[in-house]
């Protein structure tokens, strides 16, 4: 005859098994990363980059010098972020004379950054002269400056 007495250790095993199943679900599950590079990779990249060069990914490093004066007061945080990221992209990858645009449909503001000349200082630092246009309310605002690449990989505006 089957023993129907309650066995607590069975309950413990079932509980542990269930808990273990919950905590080890590291896979994508129902939110599968189709087309993504994987959450673990994102975490690994962030850890790797932060571990070696935390200052290099401090977003907005160039922001202070890039957007000053009246223009800086009239654009919002999203505009600033786009302008900053676009400038970094332009400085890093765009050949001189090539414009890299940004556009924020939420604010209606847009702009572009164009590196115009690249040179190396006596200390070996790479610098790029640039032109920037930010259009606010249909009115373009132009500025010029020089950005230099820092040892940590960030760009700093040296004479906005």
């Amino acid at each position, binding site marked *: 005859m089957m023993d129907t007495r309650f066995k*607590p*250790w069975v*309950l*413990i095993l079932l*509980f*542990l098994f269930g*808990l273990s199943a919950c*905590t080890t679900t590291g896979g*994508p599950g129902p*939110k*599968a*990363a*189709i*087309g*993504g*590079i*994987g*959450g*673990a*990779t*994102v*975490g*690994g*990249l*962030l*850890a*790797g*980059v*932060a*571990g070696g*060069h*935390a200052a*290099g*990914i*401090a*977003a*907005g490093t160039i922001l202070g010098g890039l957007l000053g004066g009246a223009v800086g007061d009239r654009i919002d*945080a*999203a505009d600033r*972020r786009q302008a900053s*990221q676009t400038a*970094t*992209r332009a400085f*890093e*990858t765009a050949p001189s004379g090539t414009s890299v645009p940004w556009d924020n449909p939420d604010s209606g503001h847009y702009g572009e950054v164009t590196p115009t000349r690249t040179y190396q200082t006596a200390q070996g630092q790479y610098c790029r002269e640039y032109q920037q246009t930010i259009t606010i309310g249909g009115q373009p605002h132009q500025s010029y400056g020089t950005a230099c690449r820092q040892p940590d*990989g960030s760009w700093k505006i040296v004479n906005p």
Partner: protein
Amino acid sequence: MRWIVMLILMLALIRIPIVVAQQPSAEFQKLWASADHNQDGLIDRVEFHAIMTDVFFFIDADKDGEVALTEIQRIYSQIDPSKFAVADSDRNGKLDTHEYQNAVSIDFAEVDKDDSGVITVQEFNRIYRTP
């Protein structure tokens, strides 16, 4: 009575390593602070894309405007190459900024386990690891 004690002991043994693993390192906290622009203690999609854009330019070692699998492996060797291949929609062996941002946008959803639209410290810490 004995099984209740056993249950409590088992739970204690399981919980201790989980709690220890969730203690963010100083490096993690610095990264979190640099990503959390509005200082609300959460990473939203805009903030996530901003920091991942910065990561893109760091990964792109040869500064050609695209990241190759080998460039990612230099930072994180455990990347699944098949996922890279799926993200590489034009099959040129590299991710341009568009392909990369599309991929990490999908990854945001994977990290955001509770579908809240923002990443919490706990969710972020779950994926954060030293290569």
